[in-house]
């Protein structure tokens, strides 16, 4: 790490970027109001600035501080305590998907023999690693990789490939899959042991001692941010919902990529205040809210806008998602008295690392708490662990709470497996069935 790079980083962070972002933020044109939707969230402008700053700063982090690429379920609090700049390949892949660049960038990985059946987040990320292609200018090359297999097993092989490509070390936190009805203490003890081992590895890598005080500060910030995010999601229990889950998918970015940093807490304090104000004034995200829906699985990033419109046209409002709840459901376990045990339980116990019975109970709880009338289960073609078992979930939602659902076949970033017409037919038929009648006014202009 060089002193010059550190100076440059501080100059960019404290002087150049604030000025540049203020200038850019002020120039953004406001769109005319859309009658299908309520007023746009004011916090979105802040979100854009924060994320633009995150990716812009990343370019100057190289050399100024160690850079780590990490999975979404990694205990980032440890890395932050050592002063790492962290980059989330999954978040970057989602961004590429939203810009409709998924197939183009993943083709770079496919050309090197990575099958189209592999996770599209992995393909986009490896495609970026091989070609440097990205819509954010550039990402800093990693000095270290940190992978936790609590979300899937693919991340291990994906990060091994990155490790080979960059010739750098990989730290793995292995989180055993949790089957219900068994004592979880040994599994969490095993994870906790690895976390303590990771501290030793990080001390050696960063060439500095572990700063426990700093670690506890980061952990507290992370806990607060997760609680705030939980509070944000809870406002969607209100009828009408002050924002939709499609909005939440976008506002999720800081809790994924920036948790443990003060900026993340500040952002969600602002968003929560705005949403509470909306609830108080009865401001609806979709003024014609008729059907409240649950969403399962990752967002379909490339079709977020068209889907939001299609849902709104039918008064259908997704108000809760298993995906967005993943960053709120374990926040209460961040116990500062037992920080390593807390990290082990928080990251080892997320719902994707638990069996189908747990997922079913989780889905039913969310459905009840958010008073939903139906569910949309996104079967992501290239995310097998999240999509497997959805027909069983569909059946149990129908059997117990009597909630109808539809399975939507798509992918998070690869739009080659997406058929807009087929998706529209499935969703419209589902909305027609929800109406409980067989008719509906077509909202578009009728050809004459």
């Amino acid at each position, binding site marked *: 790490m060089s002193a010059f790079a550190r100076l440059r980083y501080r100059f960019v962070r404290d002087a150049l970027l604030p000025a540049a972002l203020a200038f850019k933020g002020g120039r953004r044109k406001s769109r005319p109001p859309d009658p299908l939707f309520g007023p746009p969230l004011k916090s979105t402008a802040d979100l854009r600035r924060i994320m633009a700053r995150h990716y812009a700063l990343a370019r100057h982090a190289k050399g100024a501080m160690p850079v780590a690429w990490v999975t979404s379920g990694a205990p980032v609090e440890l890395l932050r305590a050592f002063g790492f700049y962290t980059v989330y390949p999954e978040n970057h892949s989602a961004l590429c998907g939203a810009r409709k660049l998924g197939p183009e960038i993943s083709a770079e990985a496919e050309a090197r023999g990575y099958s189209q059946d592999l996770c599209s987040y992995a393909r986009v990320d490896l495609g970026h690693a091989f070609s440097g292609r990205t819509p954010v200018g550039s990402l800093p090359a990693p000095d270290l990789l940190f992978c936790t297999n609590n979300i899937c097993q693919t991340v291990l092989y994906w990060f091994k490939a990155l490790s080979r490509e960059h010739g750098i070390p990989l730290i793995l936190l292995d989180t055993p899959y949790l089957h219900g009805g068994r004592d979880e203490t040994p599994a969490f003890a095993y994870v906790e042991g690895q976390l303590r081992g990771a501290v030793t590895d990080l001390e050696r890598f960063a060439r500095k001692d572990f700063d426990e005080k700093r670690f506890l500060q980061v952990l507290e910030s992370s806990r607060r941010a997760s609680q705030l995010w939980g509070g944000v999601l809870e406002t969607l229990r209100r009828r009408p919902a002050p924002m939709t889950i499609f909005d939440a998918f976008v506002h999720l970015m800081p809790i994924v990529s920036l948790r443990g940093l003060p900026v993340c807490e500040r952002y969600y304090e602002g968003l929560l205040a705005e949403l509470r104000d909306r609830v108080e004034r009865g401001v609806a995200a979709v003024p014609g809210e008729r059907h409240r829906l649950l969403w399962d699985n990752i967002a379909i990033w490339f079709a977020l806008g068209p889907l939001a419109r299609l849902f709104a046209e039918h008064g259908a409002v997704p108000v809760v998602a298993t995906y967005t709840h993943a960053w709120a459901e374990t926040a209460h376990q961040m116990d500062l008295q037992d920080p390593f045990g807390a990290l082990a339980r928080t990251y080892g116990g997320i719902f994707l690392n638990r069996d189908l019975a747990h997922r079913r109970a989780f889905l039913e709880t969310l459905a009840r708490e958010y008073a939903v009338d139906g569910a949309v289960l996104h079967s992501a073609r290239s995310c097998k662990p999240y999509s497997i078992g959805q*027909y069983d979930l569909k059946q149990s939602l*129908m059997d117990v709470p009597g909630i*109808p659902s539809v*399975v939507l*076949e798509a992918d998070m970033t690869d739009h080659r*497996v*997406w*058929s807009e*017409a*087929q998706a529209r*037919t*499935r969703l*419209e*038929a589902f909305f*027609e*069935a929800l109406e*409980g*009648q*067989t*008719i*509906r*006014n*077509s909202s*578009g202009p*009728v*050809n*004459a």
Partner: protein
Amino acid sequence: MDLYAGVDVGSLTAKAVILGEDGSRLGESLVRTSPDFAESARRALGEALSSAGSPGAEPRATVGTGYGRASVPGAARSVTEITCHARGAAELVEGVRLVVDVGGQDSKAIRVGPGGRVEDFAMNDKCAAGTGRFLSAMAETLHTGIEGLGPAGLRSRRDVVLSSTCTVFAESEVISLLAGGEKADDVAHAVHLAMARRLAGLVRLVGAQEPAAFTGGGALNGDLVRCLESVLGLAFTVPEKPQLAGALGAALIARESGPR
């Protein structure tokens, strides 16, 4: 007298049904779809009105359905083919609980509740396997013509196994079977059995139950119907002119809901 029209613009054919005020079926049509969906819809509607003895009449309400549902001229509403097939089948088969529809572009299984309401449905994924397109491709390879495929399968005397339902792979598999000396009739039956197994998968997702109806162009293939019945152990009723079930459902909805 007021007329009500349902127009179903599918990927291969456009269908229309005309109902009178009392719900009686007065006219119908079935034409090939051209690349211009609006023109196809207009042609189907025009022919159906002529067959109802009211050429050039203006229906009091029209409902569009099928992939081209948004392109039906003068339609007050568009309703998905899933809802329309369920509604049409409920009119044709009393107390129907399950509808299997095999169209040109997709196939679906629908669980139907009282009054023809959709309770649940499942469709083929983004692939031609299990659709009318699959049957067309097989008929071409076997030189039977689409109308001849069913009768060929019914003549089969020998069990042949076709493992693939992927249209591309099945085609090469069919060619290998023929090259290996298998009879076209036996291969046709194998094609239907492979497709029936795939359709059975959709049916099981919504629940196999009777009374069951088979609609869409695929229902005209007697061997396919027989294969599905044997795979599922269910009896299917095939209504007269099963391709018109969607247009009939759309016309019934037009009559119930009136003009916009």
